[in-house]
């Protein structure tokens, strides 16, 4: 009886603090390549996701914690990273005359933001602030599924609901009224590798990219984790054997 009570307590403890999303929404769950203890990022999908971010999201959303040098994780080599960085104009300075000036980006630069500050971002988006996307996949419950569901979640509002000016109806958004207009419709970008550019394909790719941005060390973490867990499992077995041996003479 006691064991059963204990097991019930453990189950309650484990499920209790699981902070559920909104409650009024249901998310589309996908079998992401990065799920599970052996999960890894899909480099090709991340490169495509970066293209989606760059050509669509980056109009409003910054990613200020990401530097161009980090794109080595996406499978780009040094020359490619330099070329990507050089496509951006970065503010530097002050120079010897005390002036700020623009120059082409280098690998060490962080990605420039679309707006100089939050107020400018609000002014450009009807008062709503487009959040920085560097950490968005960790800053929402069930991050990747949430982002994917949000991006494919734009629907016509039910007749009973009056959608105010500047708001849009979204299935996955808590409260269903979101200030962000539908960003992806399918075929918004042209993939060089001919991959699926439907709204689902684009959304999955950009989600993959954003998950990497939020947790860039995930692959190293899981790789080390497997080794550590393997090592400690042996340690557990050895310590049990050693303990039994030492205790053999205690009655």
């Amino acid at each position, binding site marked *: 009886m006691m064991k059963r009570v204990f097991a019930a307590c453990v189950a309650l*403890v484990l499920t209790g603090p699981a902070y559920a999303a909104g409650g009024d929404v249901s998310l589309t769950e996908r079998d992401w390549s990065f799920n599970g203890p052996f999960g890894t990022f899909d480099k090709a999908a991340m490169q495509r996701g970066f293209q989606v971010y760059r050509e669509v999201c980056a109009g409003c959303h910054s990613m200020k*914690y990401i530097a161009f040098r980090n794109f080595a994780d996406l499978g780009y080599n040094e020359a490619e990273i330099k070329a990507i960085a050089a496509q951006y104009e970065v503010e530097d300075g002050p120079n010897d005359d005390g002036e700020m000036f623009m120059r082409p980006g280098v690998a060490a630069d962080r990605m420039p933001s679309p707006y100089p500050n939050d107020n400018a971002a609000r002014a450009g988006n009807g008062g709503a602030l487009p959040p920085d996307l560097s*950490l968005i996949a*960790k*800053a929402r419950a069930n991050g990747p599924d949430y982002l994917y569901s949000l991006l494919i979640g734009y629907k016509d509002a039910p007749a009973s609901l009056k959608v105010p000016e500047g708001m849009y109806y979204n299935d996955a958004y808590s409260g269903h009224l979101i200030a962000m207009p539908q960003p992806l419709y399918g075929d918004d970008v042209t993939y060089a590798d001919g991959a699926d550019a439907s709204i689902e394909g684009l959304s999955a790719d950009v989600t993959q990219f954003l998950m990497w941005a939020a947790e860039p*060390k995930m692959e190293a973490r*899981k790789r080390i*984790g497997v080794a550590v867990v393997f090592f400690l499992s042996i*340690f557990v077995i050895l310590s049990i054997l050693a*303990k039994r041996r030492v205790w053999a003479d205690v009655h």
Partner: protein
Amino acid sequence: MSAEKFQNPVVRWIDHRLPVFSMLDHEKYDYPVPKNLNYMWNFGVLAGLSLAIMIITGIVLAMSYTAHVDYAFDAVERIMRDVNHGWMIRYIHMNAASFFFVVVYIHIFRGLYYGSYKAPRELLWILGVVIFLLMMATAFMGYVLPWGQMSFWGATVITNLFSAIPVVGDSIVTLLWGGFSVDNPTLNRFFSLHYLMPFVIAGVVVLHIIALHRFGSNNPIGIDASGPQDTISFHPYYTMKDMVGIAVFLLLLAMAVFFFPNAMGHPDNYIPANPLQTPAHIVPEWYFLPFYAILRAVPDKLGGVLLMFGAIAVLFVLPWLDRSPVRSARFRPLFRIFFWLLLIDAVVLGYLGGKPADGIYVVLSRIATAWYFLHFLVILPLLSVFETTKPLPKSISEPVLGASKGAA
């Protein structure tokens, strides 16, 4: 206890002048430990290990952290992205904090079950409650440091509790904040205190151990060791038994750190603190949830605060609430039932603390809160008088040897 027992001349020279080796030797071999301790007695050592892990990872984190409202969040991201293995250090620190509380809660409930708070171990128990209080203060201030949304709003809610104190409440809150809202001075003093407190805890842990070694460990049957046949030396027996617990603890911690590092955190804390935007639900870390439920169960602010601190205050006087001379629940059939009810009650409170404070949850919180205090203030004193306990064994060896003793 002469220094001659050491072979190494350097050790002998030092020990003659500074008897640290004799002291260690004494704790290792001469300190008698009841031979019937079960794995529940691993959790003291595991709590010490958790504290060590927290201090070591914390010192390393502080090397790359900046306690300023404009830089704290960025500093943590820099640790996660650019500091070599910074992500590992931080995830260990985050998850070991949760594990520390798991371990300490099991340690506390083990003490409750086996009556480890009873004479002559009252001070040992009280020092333990002091450590628990210090841990809660440390954990709360540590959670503020990343300066995410939950950091900021958690700090705002908890510090505001003190404003419920009559007359001086508002002054105390201003003092805690170092200003008129949670802001840069708050973050600075929380960082300073968060760094200080673990060492205060370590000091109280030393006292806790001194008090423990005065009468030695309690044991599952709760009667005192009657002689050498009832005890064994700490080393190698309990060092090896603790090793098993340590190995399992590290294995579980590693699984959390490497595979579910954010499972016990709140996603909102990856959003930078914004004083102008309140999160939908402000929830503290999971280990505070039972107390949070008690706080919110009371419609009056001061009442809620008093009851929340009262929930810990009853632990201080527990040795005098439970007057039953029998320590272990094994020989207290009624107490044992109420123990499990209390454990369920605590878990239910934790569950309710994570739910919004409306509707059925408030009603349940009130029932669970009432039961918590009823257990300590009414049931335990009554049980001490009316419970018929089972007969105690004559010695620790008797139940261990069992029937075979007669044959021998």
